[in-house]
């Protein structure tokens, strides 16, 4: 009996609902677009988490993707949004391929700290580069698609729609990857690497591939964020940014490719409301919310949905 994976259909349904409801929720569009950008980075993290690897340096690719978009738009006057997004993804993927050769040898906390070290080194390089504005960064010029300007003007819907479609495509592709033999190796590698090697698969190249995928997704997320926010700065590569992604990954859970987006949306909402209603103690609120989720929902928020579906 073959397993029918319902995820692409759920994703399609979500896409349609979001695109349809979008015009009626103008106040939420910005927050949702930001969440989708964050969700993309977290999606890559989830791929790594399934393999038992926690990367504390996804901020590196997030930042590189954003800076690629910013630089092309500011210095090379590239305005096409799709081209910019593609550039961000590709540059991040190339960097991930290079660093992946080294990183694929590490596991556990050392993998985490080495990724952190690389992202902090790039942070340092950007801080020293006054041509790119050092820690102040610089603004990203508005991008356009099909002849119309989609970012940096009052209407949030075009950018939101683009982000939805991009997130949908990325999620569907990642989901397909995770259902392939190489993708399924993730949990096998996490459980016992040596047996996987005995089986004849190469753990190293599997991890390298996943790392490149995670890097590319983070770069795409960074590109989306750069276009939405309209500003980039080196703080995107700081370890606290990466830490936030890790937190959202745990919050959402690793059960499905939908989980990262869910986690990102909920995290953004909690943080915004914490800022609004307790400007003096938002860290307390956020930390408590985190604790509650970790204690009561150890498999992340997605586990709630998974349980409901199984019951149905």
């Amino acid at each position, binding site marked *: 009996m073959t397993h029918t994976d319902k995820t692409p259909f759920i994703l399609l349904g979500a896409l349609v609902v979001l695109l349809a409801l979008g015009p009626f929720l103008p106040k939420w569009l910005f927050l949702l677009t930001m969440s989708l950008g964050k969700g993309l980075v977290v999606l890559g993290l989830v791929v790594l988490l399934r393999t038992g690897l926690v990367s504390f340096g996804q901020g590196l690719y997030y930042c590189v993707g954003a800076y690629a978009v910013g630089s092309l738009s500011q210095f090379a006057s590239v305005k096409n949004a799709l081209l910019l997004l593609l550039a961000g993804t590709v540059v991040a993927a190339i960097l991930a391929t290079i660093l992946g050769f080294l990183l694929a040898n590490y596991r556990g906390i050392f993998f985490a*700290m080495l990724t952190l070290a690389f992202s902090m080194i790039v942070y340092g390089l950007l801080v020293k580069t006054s041509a790119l504005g050092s820690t102040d960064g610089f603004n990203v010029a508005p991008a356009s698609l099909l002849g119309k300007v989609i970012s940096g003007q009052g209407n949030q819907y075009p950018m939101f729609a683009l982000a939805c479609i991009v997130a949908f495509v990325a999620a569907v592709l990642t989901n397909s990857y995770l259902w392939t033999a190489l993708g399924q190796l993730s949990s096998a590698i996490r459980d016992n690497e040596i047996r996987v090697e005995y089986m004849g698969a190469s753990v190293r190249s599997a991890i390298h591939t996943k790392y490149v995928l995670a890097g590319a997704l983070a770069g795409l997320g960074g590109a989306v964020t750069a276009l939405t926010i309209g500003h980039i700065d080196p703080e995107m590569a700081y370890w*606290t940014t990466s830490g936030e992604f890790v937190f959202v990954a745990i919050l959402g859970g690793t059960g499905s490719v939908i989980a990262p987006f869910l986690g990102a949306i909920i995290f953004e909402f909690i943080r915004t409301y914490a800022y609004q209603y307790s400007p003096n103690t938002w860290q307390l609120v956020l930390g408590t919310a*985190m604790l509650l989720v*970790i204690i009561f929902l*150890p498999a992340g928020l997605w586990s709630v949905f998974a349980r409901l579906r199984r019951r149905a």
Partner: protein
Amino acid sequence: MNEFLAVLVDGLIYSSWLFVIALGLTLIYGVMKILNMAHGSFYALGAYAAASMVGYWLNHGHAAMASYGVLVVAAVLVGLIAGPLVERGLRFMYGRDEMVLLLVTYALFLILEDVIKLIWGVNPYFVSEPYGLLGTLDFAGLTYPYYNLILIGVAVLAGGAVTLVLQYTRQGKLLLAVIHDREVSVAMGINVSRFYLVTFTIGTALAAIGGAVTAPTVSVVPGMGVEVIVLAFAVVVIGGLGSLQGAALGALIVGLVRSAAVHYLPQVELFCIYTVMALVLIFRPKGLFAAADVRKI
């Protein structure tokens, strides 16, 4: 020559500071396999508690020389109060994935940041009298306050004390057994829960001592714990998780490299610690003094 000596002394002072902070972290990891991100908060708590207690002590006209003792007492109090409280809370999470515990401690760190802000407010606290009290020493053409040099002594003392306890006391040897294999230790009748409690308390107290000892040299402000977390983690990872000698050597390397950078090439100071960490991990993937890993097939 003078410049070289200055690099050495500055490096040693910074290394000692790093070591005192990293010691507690590596101890807790070694025994409990928890990477405590709230370590920075305990450091900050120690600094604030020291600032308040020493401030109170000096304002009531007590002996200034005794303020050093008050610093230590403040730190130990923080350890004794915060340590068991937090450990009891973490008890529910034992057995879970390392990364989940890391996130729990991160959540704790966020909460403690605001708790500190609620108790002490956002204004800076000063408790600089102990810093200048011991006078200064002229060495290598420069002036160094004795306080900084005593910091080196504190580091050596702390490291030595912990090592001695672990190697030569009965409790210490039992702790080594727990570090080595928790399950067998429980089977042999060792009260592992109590050891965890004691270790966590000592680790917290060490972090607080780091903060208390730093307080007279800075203005105690919110957010002072954040920078310390990454430094402590880097030193611990460089040295090899759970290894005391590793933490010492890691702190020494980072301190000396940073000091050399500051004196000869200040623009690269920003990269120092991360480059050292990356280089060490490239050549020794599990840190300098990595414990042998048992592979289960």
